[in-house]
């Protein structure tokens, strides 16, 4: 398989993030290239989720600069991230449990809808055409993730692995150029993990989506990532190709020495 990895699209320079006196991230720099699968790993409390939240605009680092497609990013809110085509999934599933799979995925299209609330409520004018068009996109996502059989099932009734897949579906419905995963395999059994890996690789391969991934499971990360960043106690202790990281002594110490 040949894959074209493009230029740097996200560049984080000397990021530090504090919550009061707690240093969550200290002087971290790394970049993400277009079309790659970039993983952030580290033991519990290493600052992985904080890092993701910085990328996503949920947290605002006190120090450091962020460049998105070469332009420095000022203070950004999460909805602006969505408008910039960055989508994410959550560590704890954040779906609407009472709504069907179809409707949940439809919510991923919300930033693309132009018609207003009243038009939607009356299903009138452009709202109608728009919905049909969005529904088609949603169906493509359903087809892609092979969840046709649960299209109309309320999400709350699905097993965990499938809920995760639906969450991925909602993120995909936004047609993101960058997709952030927060521990997509946590709590899954082996088969569900394999499925999820396959979908992540397929998304990356078919749509060219850049993927930033936080994961605990070293085996999974090493298999699917192009490059890996390792964090420990808010500091970067390794960065590079999976094989290099695997043999990095600091990384081994952080994982084995710290009891993980």
């Amino acid at each position, binding site marked *: *398989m*040949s894959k074209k990895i493009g230029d740097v699209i996200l560049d984080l320079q000397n990021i530090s993030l504090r919550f009061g006196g707690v240093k969550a991230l200290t002087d971290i720099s790394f970049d993400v290239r277009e079309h790659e699968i970039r993983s952030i790993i580290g033991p519990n409390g290493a600052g992985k989720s904080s890092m993701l939240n910085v990328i996503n605009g949920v947290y605002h680092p006190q120090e450091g600069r962020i460049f998105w497609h070469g332009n420095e990013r000022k203070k950004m809110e999460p909805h602006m991230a969505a408008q910039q085509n960055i989508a994410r999934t959550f560590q704890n599933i954040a779906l609407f449990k009472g709504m069907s799979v179809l409707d949940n995925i439809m919510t991923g299209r919300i930033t693309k809808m132009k018609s207003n609330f009243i038009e939607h409520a009356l299903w009138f004018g452009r709202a109608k055409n728009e919905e049909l068009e969005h*529904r*088609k996109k949603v*169906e*493509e996502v*359903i*087809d892609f993730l*092979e969840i*046709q*059989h649960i*299209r*109309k099932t309320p999400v709350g009734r699905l097993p965990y692995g499938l809920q995760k897949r639906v969450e991925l579906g909602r993120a995909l419905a936004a047609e993101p150029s960058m997709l952030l995963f927060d521990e997509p395999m946590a709590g899954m059994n082996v088969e569900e993990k394999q499925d999820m890996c396959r979908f992540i690789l*397929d998304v990356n*391969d*078919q749509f060219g989506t850049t993927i930033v991934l936080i994961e605990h499971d070293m085996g999974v990360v090493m298999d699917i990532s192009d490059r890996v960043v390792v964090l420990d106690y808010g500091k970067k202790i390794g960065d590079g190709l999976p094989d290099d990281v695997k043999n990095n002594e600091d990384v081994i110490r952080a994982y084995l020495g710290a009891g993980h």
Partner: protein
Amino acid sequence: MPTQANYAALDGLHTFPRLLFNHARTRPHSPAMREKYLGIWQTWTWSDVAERVRALACGLSELGFKRGDNLAIIGDNRPHLYMMMAAAQCLGGVPVPLYQDAVAAEMLFVLQDAGIRFAIVEDQEQVDKLLEVRDQLPNLEHIVYDDPRGMRHYNHPFLHDIHELMEMGRIHDRNHPDFINGEVEKGHYDDTSVMLYTSGTTGKPKGVCQTHAAFIAAAQGGVQVDRMGADGDILSYLPMAWVGDHLFSYAQALVAGFTINCPESGDTVMSDLREIGPTYYFAPPRVFESLLTSVMIRMEDAGKLKYKIFHHFMDVAKRCGADILDGKSVSLGNRLQYWLGNLMVYGPLRNVLGMSRIRVAYTAGAAIGPDLFKFYRSIGINLKQFYGQTETCAYVCMQPDSEIKFDSVGRPAPGVDIKIADNGEVLVKGPMLLKEYYKRPDATAESINADGYFLTGDAGFLDEDGHLKIIDRAKDVGKLANGAMFAPNYIENKLKFFQYVKEAVCFGANREQVCAFINIDMGAVGNWAERRGIAYAGYTDLACKPEVLELLRECIEQVNADLVHDTMMADSQVHRFLVLHKELDPDDDELTRTRKVRRNFVAEKYKVLIDALYEGKANQFIETEVKFEDGRRGKVSADLKIVDAKTFPIAKKAA
């Protein structure tokens, strides 16, 4: 009566491609195929299908496909795969559908045996399987795939997207407009139209070559018996390699001209069934059983009033529903009640099951329990059984409307001649017999006798109304010491109709009386025990409980009471039985992978128990080694009680 010889006369429509193009000519805008794509049902009319088949046939010919070549077809039921079947037949080739869930190594034998040069597969998964064994398939030249997903990085020159093939074919068709018509004209009803492989439970699979004439005869017979028209719908969801699917979804669809509907995926069959509401439906007994179970479980959770209404009208249905369906005379009171029940219960229930429009539903492949069978018939679903095998286009016996018996497979179908051999084996003759086994003249000669009858290998008899009853595989049928027929499978099936009995093995060949091993159904018996407050620690413990043995004794005595009325089987009443201390398991070689009992192996392994049964002992200790799924071994031991069951005096002998 349709016979092979007079096909040349029937409007010249004696091959499947001719039938297809005739539909496209006479009713171009009627729907021929539907498939759900991106959540919406897409329809192809007969003229759409004909156009695509033409394009595919021309494309195949461009790739070098010639008369007599075999085309492997691997995938779920997809319209393009059915079209490919017709395309191969247009060129005088032979489609060879394979079971799509087999792993590459299992497909290898068929692919080699059929000398496959061309394959059409559904998707990346199947392409990968073929690539895996490609070095062992020197003849394989081209693979065409239907679904391009995930195929972007495959750049082997022998891989083709089906749309690419169609485009190639359309150009060819424009340049040589007479080519396909000429090829179709060359097709003869006596050519092999399809090759279906037997499952190979006994030895290597054999390729059964069926002619156009044979399948058209079988399809016409079925269409005639069930009066099927061009306005029907069928849901095509069973493997394309299975003879039944080929008969229903291909042969009958082309003969009668009804619409085939391909489900979105294997997991959506039930919801697709409801959306399509087919008029014609086939399912193995276990599907009907699980549908019924899910209905019953949901009724348990229903409100009191609904629960009462449901059960009241189910009693009405039980009383007179089947008779109304059969057109027998039923009292006015019952008719009124049934009418009301239809309004309130049966109609909505049929709708939920996706069976509102069903004219005929078929089941076959395994014995169906009488209660299950009667349930569907009583709520107005015309459920019937048929009998046949790959070698006879799945067309030997059918149950005609209003002559339904749950324990027979019906009368010989139109044009079929049945004879019972001296050893009880069913012999069949008719226009639907196989032409030959592919490259196996020895097997062909063995299976057809001097008078042209095919040896089915099943034992059976014709009852007083001329209905065929299948009792067992002929090789399993033996005789009791007093000379009466002993068909173990027949008795075992009767036992297995009880929900508490998972598996049964009967012994009795050359012995005075019949004895049985029973495996209890852990789910059903466990549930039964819990409701009675009987504590148990596991399968072995539960199987040894005196209450459980008592429960099974009642089941067996019911079977005995039933058997005594059976003229041929009255001597086969079960005298003694025991409940095995472990479940029979394929991992221990006691069952085949398709979960059939390996009778001789079991008899040998548990010889000590059989001896105990016949020596009249009251109990017997046994210890057995078992293999666990992860490869570990362990031992199970128990002291098994042997129970005597009541038998009934045989009426004829007493009189």
